[in-house]
C-alpha cells in the first residue's frame, strides 16, 4: 500500500488502445487528465457531478462518467474516448444518422450520447426504442428534445445490423 499527499504520481493505463503514463494527483478527475494532459478534448464537461453524461467514456468496456472517476482508479485499465471510436463502423453509422436526423445541435452532449449509444449497441445490437431510451437516459441534451437523438440511434442500429 502506498500513501501520498500533495504529490503527483505516475499512473499508467491504456487510452484508445495506446499505453499512456501520466503524472497526476491520484484524485484528479479522469476527465481533466484526458482533456488537459492527453489533449483528448472530445470528452466534454457538463455538470461535473454525474448527472449529464457529457463526459461519458468507456472503462474496461463499461460506460462511466469520467468526472466521477479519480484517475488513480484507472491504473491498468483500458479507457476509450470518442476519439478512439474512429475505426468502429457503428461510430460511422451514428455520425451519419446524428447528422441526418438532427441529433446534434450545439454538440456538447454529442460525444457522450455517442459513447452511450455504442455501449448500448455493445450490450444490445438490436435495441428496442425502450432500450435506447434507457441506454441514453443518463445523458442530457438541452437542444434537441431527444426525439432526433433516439431516432438517430435506432436508425444507426438498423444500418449496422443489416451490414
Amino acid at each position, binding site marked *: 500500500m502506498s500513501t501520498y499527499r500533495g504529490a503527483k504520481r505516475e499512473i499508467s493505463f491504456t487510452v484508445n488502445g495506446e499505453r499512456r503514463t501520466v503524472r497526476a494527483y491520484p*484524485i484528479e*478527475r479522469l476527465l481533466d487528465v484526458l482533456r488537459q494532459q492527453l489533449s483528448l478534448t472530445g470528452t466534454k464537461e457538463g455538470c461535473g*457531478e454525474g448527472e449529464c453524461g457529457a463526459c*461519458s467514456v468507456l472503462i474496461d468496456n463499461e460506460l*462511466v462518467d469520467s468526472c466521477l472517476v479519480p484517475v488513480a482508479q484507472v491504473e491498468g485499465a483500458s479507457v476509450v474516448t470518442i476519439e478512439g471510436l474512429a475505426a468502429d463502423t457503428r461510430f460511422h453509422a451514428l455520425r451519419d444518422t446524428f447528422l441526418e436526423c438532427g441529433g446534434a445541435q450545439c454538440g456538447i452532449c454529442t460525444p457522450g450520447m455517442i459513447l452511450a449509444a455504442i*455501449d*448500448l449497441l455493445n450490450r444490445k445490437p438490436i435495441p428496442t426504442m425502450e432500450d435506447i431510451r434507457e441506454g441514453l437516459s*443518463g445523458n442530457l441534451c438541452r437542444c434537441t428534445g431527444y426525439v432526433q437523438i433516439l431516432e438517430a440511434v435506432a436508425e444507426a442500429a438498423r444500418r449496422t445490423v443489416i451490414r
Partner: protein
Amino acid sequence: MRSDPSEYEFVIAASLREAVQLLSEQPKAWMPIAGGTDVMVQLAWGALRADRLLSIWNLPELRAIEVLGEEIRIGAGSTYTDVRRHQIIAREFPLLSLAASWTGGIANQNRGTLGGNIVNASPAADSLPALLAYEAELILASAEGERRVAYLDFHKDYKKMELGPAELIRAICLKPRFRKYVSYARKVGARSAQAIAKVSIAALGRVEKDKVAEARIALGSVAPIPIRLRETERVLVGSRLDAQTMARARKMAVAESRPIDDIRSTARYRAAVVENLVAEFLETLAAAQSDE
C-alpha cells in the same frame, strides 16, 4: 468551489484485510471511496468532509454475489449493474432489481454500489426501501472480525448509522422466501432516470383466506431515513382488503410519514403521493388475490 486535488491523500487498498487494517489503525481518519458517485460529487462541491480517501473500488471480496445456504449474499461493492444482471436477484428480489434499474443512468449504475447507497444514507436512496421490505441483514467487517446487524436497525437518524469508524459494510444478505408475495414498487420523481425521488415505495404483501397475512411497506424521501410503516402494516394484517380497511391504511400511512418541504417537492404533495402509493399497493394486492 471545487476542491484542490493536491490536498487529498488517496490510498488504494489491495484487499479487504488491508482496508480494515488501515481503518483500525487510524479510525475516523479515512473515508472509504468505491465508485465515487457520491464522494466525487462532494469533492466537486468542495463539501467533502475528509482529506484522506481509501479506495475500496473493485475489491473482489466486496464484489461477489453468492448463494450461501439459505441466503444470498451481495458483496457491498457490487454495482447496481451487478445487481440488475443477477438472475437470482431478479427472480427472488424484484423490488431490489427494480430499484437498481431506476438509480441514475447506466453510467451511474456501473459505478455506484449497494454498500455505498447504504452508507451515504440519503433518505431518498433508491435501494433502501427494498432492503427494508426484504428485511436484509448486513455483515459489517473490521480488523477484529465480522458482525451481523439487521438493516431495520442500521439507520438511526439522518446520516446516523450503526457503523463504527473502523468498520466497513462487507455484504448485504437476503433470504429468498418472497416468491409468493405480491411486490409493488414505484419511484415518483421529475424524471425516471437521473432524478432523486420525491417519494419512493417498496412493498410486499400476502393474502390468505381473504385476509392480509403479511404486509411490509417501506418508503423513501418522507422522513430523515427510509422508513417502514409499522402502524399501517398493523392496520392491514388480519383484515379483509375492503374499502374501510383501505381507507384506514391510507390515513395511517400519511400519519406515519414525516415529509418535509425541500428543493424537490413539498410536504403536502408528498403526503398526497404517500396516500396514493399505499392505495395503489393495496389495489394491486387485492387484484392479485382475486386472480387466485
